[in-house]
């Protein structure tokens, strides 16, 4: 039980994908102008990350490890994720046109989001969470994917909130746009790095 708790906490805060591990910076900066689109993107990434970690774990554990082909994991995971996003897109388009409309172009873009590949890769090794180390099983992989995705959502929604306020602030010309956004992100990252001192 304690392991699962650690994975949840690690994904959300301690090993926050964006602010501590610096994965998925592209959508983090690109889709964080408004909180509602940021939330949409976050939920889409969460969904794909949870699914991808399960599928990648199955492929890794039951195909690559028995054949001693673990060095193929990068290319295999890329294959899995790209196909998965295609399938997810088709399924969503068929069964929930509203969700498909809301996600729009973000869904195919997730294929190239390194956070998704990152979580699949991390699941193959022991995960460091604060002082503890956890090796994941299938359920752990799912939890890690889902809660890392939620951690991504948390970070992107927080930044979107900051950027909405910044749009109305009197920012010096040299700092307008991305410079001030990156500075805000850096301060958030410093705040999040404090979670790494949590000990269990």
């Amino acid at each position, binding site marked *: 039980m304690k392991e699962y708790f650690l994975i949840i906490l690690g994904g959300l805060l301690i090993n926050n994908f964006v602010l501590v591990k610096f994965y998925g910076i592209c959508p983090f900066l690109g889709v964080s102008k408004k909180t509602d689109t940021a939330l949409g993107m976050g939920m889409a990434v969460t969904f794909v990350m949870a699914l991808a970690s399960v599928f990648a774990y199955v492929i890794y554990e039951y195909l690559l490890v028995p054949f001693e082909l673990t060095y193929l994991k990068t290319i295999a995971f890329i*294959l899995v994720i790209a*196909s998965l996003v295609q399938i997810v897109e*088709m*399924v969503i388009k068929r069964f929930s046109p509203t969700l498909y409309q*809301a996600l729009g*172009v973000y869904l195919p873009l997730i294929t190239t989001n390194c956070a998704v590949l990152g979580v699949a890769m991390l699941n193959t090794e022991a995960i460091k969470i604060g002082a503890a180390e956890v090796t994941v099983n299938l359920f752990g992989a799912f939890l890690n994917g889902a809660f890392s995705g939620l951690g991504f959502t948390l970070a992107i929604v927080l930044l979107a909130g900051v950027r909405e306020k910044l749009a109305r602030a009197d920012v010096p010309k040299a700092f307008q746009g991305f410079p001030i956004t990156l500075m805000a992100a850096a301060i958030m990252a410093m705040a999040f790095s404090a979670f790494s001192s949590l000990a269990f």
Partner: protein
Amino acid sequence: MLAIQISGILIPAAILLAVAALFALVIVVLSRKLSVEENEREKEVLSHLAGANCGACGYPGCSGFAKALCEGKAQLSDCSATPKEGKQEIGKILGVAADGEDTVAVVRCNGGSHCQSKYEYQGYGDCRTAELLAGGRKACPVGCIGLGTCTDVCPNYAIDVGEEGFAVVDREKCTSCGLCIRNCPKKLIDRIPRSARVYIACSNDCRGKDVKELCSSGCLGCTLCSKVCESGAITMKNNLPVFDYSKCTGCLKCVEKCPVHCIKEVKE
């Protein structure tokens, strides 16, 4: 030895290929089973849109905009990225007039010499450099600086700073290319339909008392124009009138009634 090496390459390759083939099969089967009938019209409209997926129209991507267009929820003019030819094609598909409404630029300020100065500006420079010095020489934060950046950038010599000290557009020459709109540091230049008869030539949205202290021809937000308008084409927003040109009959009552004469009649 050679056999071992070859099998060491072939087995991983075969496994990877098998996984890829499996996924490909699943995708093919699913795409057959789950294929959604797409609206042919939407597809065709989408093919003529810019495809920038910029989201400026307020819909999720160009496909969302194409859907809204076909359902009549969106206007073609909501998209600024699609070139004119594309819009005409879409107009043909949808059977509506292709956004055709010709536009012309107008300057949303008639302050000039009526507007007080913050300081005397002497020497070289245009509006963009003057803007860097405490926001220009005019006391009004959204007043035309009158140093002619728009004149400099206009390829058609269609805009000039008149004797009264604010820029004026020559409708005959203006092609609505938008260069002045992009270069005006005060963002005072705007497009209106070419058929429009009147426009508001002030951008100051402060309260009437504050405007009056700065400029004798600034909009006071008195709402007289919206009250005198019989067709209900004028609504007040942030102390400024907003014109709905589809309702405007061109009676010019608002122009007569405006106490500071900041609603201008467009002279043909």
